[in-house]
């Protein structure tokens, strides 16, 4: 299968390579526009919304251009050739659908924002970020390279972070933004690891030359890749890692917790990012990788199905129940979004064609009704002044057009025939049913759970629609009419819902069929849906859903309270998140002062312990034996001098006063000087003697200004611990001396210096290849290793600067 194999079932669209310039423009035009937005805002003020909408419209036009051209294939631009990473874009059905959503819903949302954001702060930032988000989302949709995909993926998380935190002063916004960032970006990192393992696998198979980052190349060699992964036991890890990316982004249980909080963002953002597009990225990912991981003929319960069908159905059900427990319309819609994303992921999880069909179709359907509903929620919040479900009702009278949109979209969301949501849900039922039938046994759980979850979906959908009916609750103030800019976009989406509902096959043929082609391996055929005319098992599933839903609707409040009552402590995913984040902070506050005590003794203890452990570890690892001891090997005077030094050092330790200590310390120093004489190092002896004197002078000068002696009476355990550590350090040093003096390597340097240090017997006018002095030590210092000396005198000069700085900067302190 080549990269641009025509879809045999879609003869009307001939394969055409995408136009590189257009594809590039689709992705980067929004970024470019975002960069100019602050300047535009200075010019246009609030009308920047329409500038942004125009940009989105141009983008939509460019996407449409590629769609109409029948573009299908990959265009790549060199980016990091050394790594094999390119800025590759792949245009196919799935990419086009997501691109249509990003740019099309973008036009509507940006227009809607023109009304919604009236008088709001931070508009330049708002529109710039929205445009950047749109570019990122288009990038995700079109990316044909793993790294390029990841880049845009993370950029969507980032723009989401900024948009959720739009009301920067609000604690809730900050909490929500941080939560979404923590969850989605962390998930992205797991996904990245999954990608890297895939790249590794591509390098292992002979089917692919070298390694590849190209998603389409990986898919083209899906069998080989799977083989490598299975053989090395990495198939499940990769699925889990990539799945974590998808699950966090698409708010799958238990990572759904960030989505309801994300509703702190202005409502257009919720509609755009957190229902129609960004959260679809995870779903998109699952669809994109489906042909890579799901063999065509997978009849058994494979790893893929086990992971994604279970994840999806769990999310679909749990999130739908949570939506019923919601008290805020945006919260309800948020949980509903998670639930529907679960539906799509579950659908993609099944190996049969119905699953792929359901997923592909529901991406479109969900975007159409959910974005509309969010905009409706925005209108309600904006015009009624509240989002609390129990404070709303009878809105139909004030918001008649909005009510129509809401009812149409809600019914579609409920999966009520003949609306479009019904068709995709029906396909899901069909796929669960076939999966159960094929696999048997435990797999029958799938259809049961699907129906169970759908009942709750039905319930909350009807609840949302019912806000427009019944009596107005007390306390609901005057409800304004929405501005036209806020009404047209949801109306367009409502019309789209109706259009898809009326002619589903038109949309399938035009677009969704191609999406289907993208999410199944090999050559794809399109599909079509029909309004059921006979009583199939899955039609029965739909009937059960609707009937049970309708019967239990009167008990909605009981269910609502019941679920809320069950959500206590650890049953709430939020409990885990909050405790994790809180726990991090409290751990930090509790643990850090225990490590960074500010006490030198703690620091020195650990550092010296590290030194001892490394040294002894090194000796032990090399298997060193303590060398044979062959007598004293030093002359008696040296022994005596060093013994005096030892005694003096010990006396320093128990010195009764500072002055006494310093004096005994200098005895150590002078003994060392004598030792140098005995060790045939006259230069050292001289230097040591004079330096010792100078140190003594400075010591005495400083001591003169210090308080007398601190009675150092540590408790016994501290003393013993310090003593043990000191002993360990001493032992390590002693061992080091033994080991290193045991060696006698070739003394090449010594020989050279002595041969070349002096002046040659016969000397030419000027020479530079002999040291030219009898005192080899000095020749080394000024010639052989002159640069050491250079560094050293710099240190001395700096030491004088140090003293100056210490004394003179006193009181010049920074404002800290």
């Amino acid at each position: 299968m080549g990269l641009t194999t025509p879809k045999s079932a879609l003869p009307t669209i001939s394969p055409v390579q995408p136009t590189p310039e257009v594809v590039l423009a689709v992705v980067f035009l929004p970024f470019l526009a975002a960069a100019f937005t602050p300047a535009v805002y200075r010019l246009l003020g609030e009308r920047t919304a329409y500038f942004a909408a125009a940009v989105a419209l141009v983008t939509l036009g460019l996407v449409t251009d590629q769609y109409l051209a029948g573009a299908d294939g990959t265009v790549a631009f060199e980016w990091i050739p050394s790594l094999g990473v390119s800025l590759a874009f792949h245009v196919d059905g799935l990419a086009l659908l997501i691109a249509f959503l990003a740019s099309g819903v973008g036009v509507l949302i940006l227009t809607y924002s023109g009304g919604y954001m009236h008088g709001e702060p931070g508009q330049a930032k708002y529109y710039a970020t929205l445009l950047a988000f749109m570019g990122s989302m288009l990038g995700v949709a079109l990316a044909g390279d793993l790294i390029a995909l990841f880049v845009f993926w993370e950029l969507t998380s980032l723009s989401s972070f900024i948009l959720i935190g739009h009301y920067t002063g609000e604690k809730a916004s900050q909490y929500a933004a941080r939560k979404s960032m923590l969850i989605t970006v962390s998930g992205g990192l797991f996904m990245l690891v999954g990608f890297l393992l895939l790249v590794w696998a591509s390098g292992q198979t002979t089917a692919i030359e070298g390694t590849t980052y190209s998603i389409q190349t990986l898919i083209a060699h899906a069998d080989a890749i799977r083989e490598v992964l299975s053989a090395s036991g990495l198939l499940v890890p990769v699925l889990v890692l990539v799945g974590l990316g998808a699950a966090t982004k698409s708010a799958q249980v238990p990572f759904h917790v960030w989505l309801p909080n994300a509703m702190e963002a202005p409502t257009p953002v919720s509609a755009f990012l957190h229902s129609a597009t960004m959260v679809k990225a995870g779903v998109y990912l699952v669809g994109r990788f489906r042909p890579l991981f799901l063999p065509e003929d997978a009849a058994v319960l494979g790893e893929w199905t086990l992971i994604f069908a279970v994840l999806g159905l769990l999310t679909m059900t749990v999130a739908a129940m949570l939506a019923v427990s919601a008290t805020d319309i945006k919260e309800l819609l948020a949980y509903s979004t998670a639930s529907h994303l679960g539906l799509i992921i579950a659908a993609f999880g099944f190996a049969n064609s119905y699953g792929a069909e359901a997923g592909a179709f529901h991406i479109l359907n969900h975007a159409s009704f959910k974005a509309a509903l969010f905009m409706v929620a925005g209108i309600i919040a904006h015009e009624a002044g509240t989002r609390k479900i129990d404070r709303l009702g009878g809105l139909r009278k004030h918001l008649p057009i909005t009510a129509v949109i809401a009812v149409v979209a809600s019914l579609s969301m409920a999966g009520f025939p003949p609306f479009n949501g019904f068709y995709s849900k029906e396909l899901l039922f069909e796929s669960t049913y076939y999966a159960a039938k094929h696999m048997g046994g435990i797999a029958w759980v799938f259809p049961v759970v699907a129906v169970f979850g759908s009942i709750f979906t039905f319930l909350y959908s009807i609840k949302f629609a019912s806000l427009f009916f019944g009596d107005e609750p007390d306390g609901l103030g005057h409800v304004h009419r929405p501005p036209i800019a806020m009404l047209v976009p949801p109306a367009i989406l409502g019309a789209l819902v109706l259009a898809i509902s009326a002619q589903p096959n038109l949309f399938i043929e035009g677009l969704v069929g191609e999406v289907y082609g993208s999410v199944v391996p090999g050559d794809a055929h399109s599909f079509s849906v029909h309004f059921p005319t006979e009583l199939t098992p899955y039609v029965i599933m739909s009937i059960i859903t609707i009937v049970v839903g309708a019967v239990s609707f009167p008990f909605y409040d009981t269910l609502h309270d019941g679920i809320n009552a069950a959500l206590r402590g650890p049953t709430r995913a939020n409990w885990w998140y909050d405790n994790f984040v809180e726990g991090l902070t409290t751990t930090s506050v509790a643990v850090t002062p225990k490590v960074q005590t500010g006490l030198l003794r703690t620091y020195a203890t650990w550092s010296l312990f590290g030194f001892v452990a490394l040294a002894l570890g090194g000796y032990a690892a090399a298997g060193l034996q303590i060398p044979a001891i062959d007598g004293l090997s030093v002359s008696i005077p040296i022994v005596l001098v060093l013994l005096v030094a030892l005694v003096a050092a010990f006396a320093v330790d128990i010195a009764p006063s500072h002055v006494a200590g310093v004096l005994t310390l200098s005895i150590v120093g002078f003994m060392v000087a004598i030792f140098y004489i005995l060790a045939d190092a006259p230069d050292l002896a001289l230097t040591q003697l004079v330096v010792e004197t100078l140190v003594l002078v400075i010591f005495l000068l400083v001591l003169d200004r210090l308080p007398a002696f601190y009675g150092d009476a540590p408790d016994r355990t501290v003393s013993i611990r310090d003593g043990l550590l000191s002993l360990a350090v001493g032992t390590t040093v002693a061992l080091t001396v033994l080991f290193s003096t045991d060696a006698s390597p070739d003394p090449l340097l010594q020989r050279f210096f002595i041969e070349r240090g002096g002046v040659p017997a016969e000397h030419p006018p000027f020479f530079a290849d002999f040291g030219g002095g009898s005192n080899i030590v000095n020749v080394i210092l000024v010639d052989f290793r002159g640069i050491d000396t250079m560094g050293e005198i710099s240190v001395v000069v700096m030491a004088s600067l140090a003293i100056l700085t210490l004394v003179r900067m006193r009181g010049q302190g920074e404002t800290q």
Partner: protein
Amino acid sequence: MSGSSGRTTVISRTVARIVVPIILVTAIALLFRGHNLPGGGFIGAVLAAAAFALVYVIFGLEFIQREILDIAPDGSERHQLVESYRWMASLGLALAVASSLAPLAFDMPFLTQGVLFVEGIPIYHELEVASAFAFDIGVFFAVVGGLLTIVAEVGNE
């Protein structure tokens, strides 16, 4: 201990007057002969610094400023001595680096040292002039200046 002359005895002053010049001469001798016998810029410098430190400990800073360097010991010029030491250190370092840079002009690596034999000089007959000596003088002044800055600044306190 701000150098009150009352705390020093006549004996110690006399001793210092005799000892300090001797030490200084020794220090300079050490500097000069360092290339061939124990000594060198370092050792000479440290010894010279020690001599000054001794003077300081015995006589106090004011004495040095007033009697030796002719500086009025009022508050405004308190740091003047330190400043001189500082210049000494900086110039010493500059000399060391400059002399090390000189070989670059002759297309030889940094810090290349050479020896020139000047023949036919009376008494000595021949004189070795080691380029390293310039470097050593730089070292000497850098170290003396640095150490004295430290001692004087500490003493100033």
